């Protein structure tokens, strides 16, 4: 797996704030489209469909109920 899931961000709190702030004043539909634009831009920046597929898998796993916590 080439997807990096160890902490790498230079400023974690700033990232969170940036993402939340980006959605200010947007309704649900506009918000969803903004996220889509951001994801498309970042996916192109990464330049690998395989890495994005790994991210999709990890992201979907994250919200599944876990057995034996």
């Amino acid at each position, binding site marked *: 797996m080439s997807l990096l899931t160890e902490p790498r961000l230079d400023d974690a709190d700033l990232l969170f704030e940036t993402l939340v702030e980006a959605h200010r004043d947007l309704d649900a*539909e506009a918000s*969803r*489209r903004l*996220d*889509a*634009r951001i994801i*498309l831009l970042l996916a192109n920046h990464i330049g690998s469909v395989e890495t994005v597929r790994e991210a999709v898998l990890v992201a979907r796993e994250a919200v599944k109920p876990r057995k034996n916590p």
Partner: protein
Amino acid sequence: MQSTYTAPRYAYRPAGDAGAHHAVIVVGGGMVGLTVALDLAQRGQRVVVLDDDDTVSVGSRAICFAKRTLEIYGRLGLGRKALAKGVTWHVGKVFFQDRPIYEFDLLPEMGHEYPAFVNLQQYYIEQWLVEACVATGFVDIRWRSRVVGVLNHAGGATIEVETPDGRHMLHADWLLACDGARSFVRDSLGLPFVGKVFRDRFLIADVVMKADFPAERWFWFDPPFHRGGSVLLHRQADDVYRIDFQLGWDADPEAEKEPGRVAARVREMLGPDRPFELEWVSVYTFRCRRMEQFRHGRTLFLGDAAHQVSPFGARGGNGGVQDADNLAWKLAAVLDGTAPEALLDSYDTERVPAADENILNSARSTDFITPKSDAARAYRDAVLELAEHHAFARPLVNSGRLSRPAVLRDSVLNTPDAEPWDGGVLPGAPAIDAPLADGWLLGALRHDFAALVFGDAGDVPQGVRPVRIGMGAIDAVRRYAAHSGTVVLIRPDQHVAARWRGVDAAAIAAARDRALGLGA
């Protein structure tokens, strides 16, 4: 309604051969059935074609003839006619709302006999195919002859035919089912036809008008004149324009066909001052599906009978013509006794992946044009919003991935490269055209096995027609990555079978035998 074209009516003639035995019977005298019949006839085979109607296609239907299809019709003697009558185009433009966001060129280089696409109403091609079939003297087209029963057995097929004179039986050594998406032959043999239906409806209108629109494919997402839907515009021969309006799943197909309602939609698009006449209107739902196998003993399925795609990408008619191109030379070789029956298994193994490629591409286009969920719509709109200003998003815009010829990369008929190649045309790919000193490269290939012999190369075996190409033919040399001594073996359907940097006649003969299914 139709004013620019008068469809011929073909007379029914009693065949008077009840119980007769024929080598090849084609069921369905549409574009694909007539193409395979003509190809077989030009190879000296006698063919009976049964058609339940007495005329050509109603409505323009398959209008976009791709370069590969034009090349096939070039081989069959109809290419130039299509080029002269049709509208040549190679540029597509995509609009989002009120502005252009993306433009593509499907054939940016010169030096090909045929362009990327010619738009032409299907009825012209069918009429010319009928005339060409009749002219061979080898094709017996029987109009108003409907197949109502099929029995498939090891030695061929027995069919029951209904005509104005009643019913009779015929026997075929080989039955070619070209009877369309609702294939009677397929259904009566109980063969499944599975895939998916897209929950959307499209209005297709042929409009006659004088307009100075360029000969380009124009596609709109969510334009001001058709909010929330997509619209596609193509120019055809005789000042006929094809307009597709996306209607959505909830549209009432009967109400939408009402001429006043269609005219209002068209007027909204063209503005109030442009006079036009409606010529043909239809409402469609799209499906992508195929049979598991296209060969069932001595019954073979071609075109929409075997596989169905959505029209975005022009992969239906073009795919069907490539089926005919693939099958005709093989069946002729089997009938002549120069190839074993097993060669026909390769029709299946070559055309099934080609159909899958067409289904994949047209399904993806349809998923882009008709988003299946709110999330899909958000991504789709995000792509369109980004594409105007950011180059990276433009390749993501999918208004139809236009028909490309199948590359039969994994075919058992290919002889794999034994030497390193940097580019060129790989085994399984269709031969690429290029200008030669005395005409076109594809024009020099004709119907048989041929070898492109570049520069200073040796002899080719009997049964392979040499096409000698000097190293001064720079386009051909570049496109085939040729050196002096390079030989490229081409099958009768113009796909590359093998290539060598240097070769003797025996190796060429072995590759030819392999392509005929005579063993590796």
